[in-house]
């Protein structure tokens, strides 16, 4: 059995497909990663200003994994992200404005203030939507759901592929197991990516599985399994592209394990006391996916540093502008809560004690521990 790779350092995966990308697309990869990081940094600032409602979840150090994998999809394909896949959502067309509004629970946010952080989506017939499906909190549930999305592609003979992310922790759920098994048996066009970032909340992978590596689960589902260095964006692209191609060719499910590392806590309030000393610093110093990719671009691809600086500036401006737009939006009107539990009736009636009542000033207390960055307070997603 291969040893568990929990130490930083570039992996040995071949990146032929990634290397063959035209420079323009290679720079796009850089831009998405930079946008992800910059936007998250902005969210941290807003969180500390208590403008974010609820918790904040970072993907620091995992940007390559999210961006590189989703980059292998076509626009007609459908992807279901996790909390740490904001980068994948950006690639698939989610905008910083949407994300900021959503985190701030604005009235015109994608879910109109109904769901948290990046729990939103846009799916439907090819060509009409961007093709990402919002997750729900119970882990693993998106695997069966994405199997169903892929089932619709197969049933209709559409040339579309589904991709679903799960964390190392979520592999322990019944939903993950039932979903991937179902998809495998039905030979659905689905790529399942396990993002092994070493932790599930505070739980290290050694307490999540006794397997040497998650990719070892593939054979038990009768599907090809591949592992790649999740912090090498081209390697991630490569392994995902191969899997997507297989799915598109009717060869069914692939299970991919991307080796990465969660440098921030589960959410902003988590002080990571459970992490061995020096581990985070080592990954930051030796294996930051953006730093690594900058070296690839500047050293191997001979991209001038100024080009990257220009991209960075563009990203910063985009995030500034998005923040301004998002902050301008208002909060939802209380009565909006009544719309659309069912198609029919389209609207619930207010309960008798609210009929005609003025509901503008209800409640409004801000619970302690939510929407602030005091690490000592409870609350988790």
């Amino acid at each position, binding site marked *: 059995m291969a040893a568990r790779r929990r130490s930083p350092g570039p992996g040995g995966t071949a990146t032929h497909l990634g290397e063959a990308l035209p420079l323009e697309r290679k720079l796009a990869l850089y831009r998405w990663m930079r946008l992800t990081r910059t936007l998250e940094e902005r969210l941290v600032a807003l969180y500390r200003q208590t403008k974010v409602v609820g918790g904040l979840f970072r993907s620091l150090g995992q940007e390559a994994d999210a961006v590189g994998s989703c980059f292998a999809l076509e626009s007609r394909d459908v992807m279901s992200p996790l909390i740490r896949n904001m980068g994948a959502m950006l690639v698939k067309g989610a905008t910083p404005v949407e994300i900021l509004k959503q985190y701030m629970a604005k009235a015109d946010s994608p879910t109109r203030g109904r*769901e948290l952080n990046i729990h939103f989506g846009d799916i439907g017939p090819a060509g009409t939507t961007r093709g990402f499906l919002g997750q729900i*909190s119970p882990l693993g549930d998106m695997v069966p*759901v994405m199997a169903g999305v892929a089932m619709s592609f197969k049933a209709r003979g559409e040339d579309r592929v589904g991709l679903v992310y799960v964390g190392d922790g979520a592999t322990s759920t019944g*939903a993950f197991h039932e979903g991937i*098994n179902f998809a495998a048996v039905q030979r659905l066009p689905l790529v399942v990516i396990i993002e092994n970032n070493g932790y599930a909340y505070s739980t290290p992978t050694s307490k999540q599985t006794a397997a040497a590596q998650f990719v070892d689960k593939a054979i038990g589902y009768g599907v090809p399994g591949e592992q790649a260095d999740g912090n090498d964006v081209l390697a991630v692209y490569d392994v995902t592209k191969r899997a997507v191609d297989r799915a598109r060719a009717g060869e069914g499910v692939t299970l991919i394990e991307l080796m990465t590392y969660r440098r921030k806590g589960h959410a902003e309030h988590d002080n990571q006391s459970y992490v061995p000393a020096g581990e985070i610093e080592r990954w930051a110093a030796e294996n930051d996916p953006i730093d690594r990719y900058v070296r690839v671009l500047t050293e191997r691809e001979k991209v001038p540093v100024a080009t990257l600086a220009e991209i960075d500036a563009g990203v910063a401006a985009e995030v500034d502008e998005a923040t301004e737009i998002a902050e301008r939006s208002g909060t939802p009107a209380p009565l909006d809560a009544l719309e659309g*539990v069912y198609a029919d009736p389209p609207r619930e009636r207010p309960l008798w004690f609210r009929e005609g009542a003025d509901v503008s000033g209800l409640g409004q207390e801000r619970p302690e521990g939510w929407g602030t960055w005091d690490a000592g307070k409870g609350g988790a997603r």
Partner: protein
Amino acid sequence: MAGTEITYLEAIREAIDEEMARDPEVFLLGEDIGAYGGAFKVTDGMLAKYGEARVIDSPISEIAIVGAAAGAAHMGMRPVVEMQFIDFIANAYDMLTNYVATARYRAFLPCPMVVRGPSGGYVRGGPFHSQNPEAGFIHTPGLKVVYPSTAEDAKGLMKAAIRDDDCVLFFEHKYLYRRIKGVMPAGDHVVPIGKARTARVGTDVSIITYAATVHKALEAAEKLQAEDGLSVEVIDLRSLAPLDDEAIVATVRKTNRVLIVHEDTRTGGIAGELTARINETCFAHLDAPVLRVTAHDIPLPYAPALEDFVLPQVDDIVLAVRRLAAW
């Protein structure tokens, strides 16, 4: 076919068949529903008629089949999922209550799908093949729940459920599958979800019930008519979510005495919700307390004498109506 009498089970099959013929997006998913035709043969013949792409035998994975149905439903398909026994819907409780029920509200995603399966007791099925799990779901906003008692309604509600734009849980009473027969109305027979049915008109006491106990209530009503000269109205709810408040209010205001009967266990069963609604809307019209005849709060045992003790029986209803009439 209009004109001939068919069973409750055949009526369900006919509805599924007609909807599959009508709408190519309708497909079936479940365990042993293809070649075998389902544990109770509800989907018998469907594989031969519609092929493997539309009649899909799944692994034993209730979470996956409900979740996959949701994903397909988002994309415009219309899955009809079988639970081999409705008892196993418990395995998909998270997927149904957290994912499916909330999809439209939290994400504006349509999730038109039917989850159906053989339900209920009186068949010596023991604790895991006799359940009535409706209470755990009518509690969840976003789900619809129907539970027919006649062959006609079984067909008409199944057609409505398949056409509904939200998820409908369709409970089929296995005791009724082959015992209850009916002649299907001609044409495209659709029974709207959310409307109760007056199974028997009466003026003295109302019984509100659904599924197998509709037939127990009707039997009791005949006996009460014959022995006591009491005129008993029987309301068959058919839809448990949404409830037909109008029909409930109408019968209560008419008779002023209400008995609620359900096969489900007592505590937390739907009778409580009905009592609350009646109390809220008809307090001044009640000449007696709303009474309940239900199963005992006990996991259903399978020995005949034990099952019969735990479940509500005709004589219980007779006794309860007499008590109400004498109040």
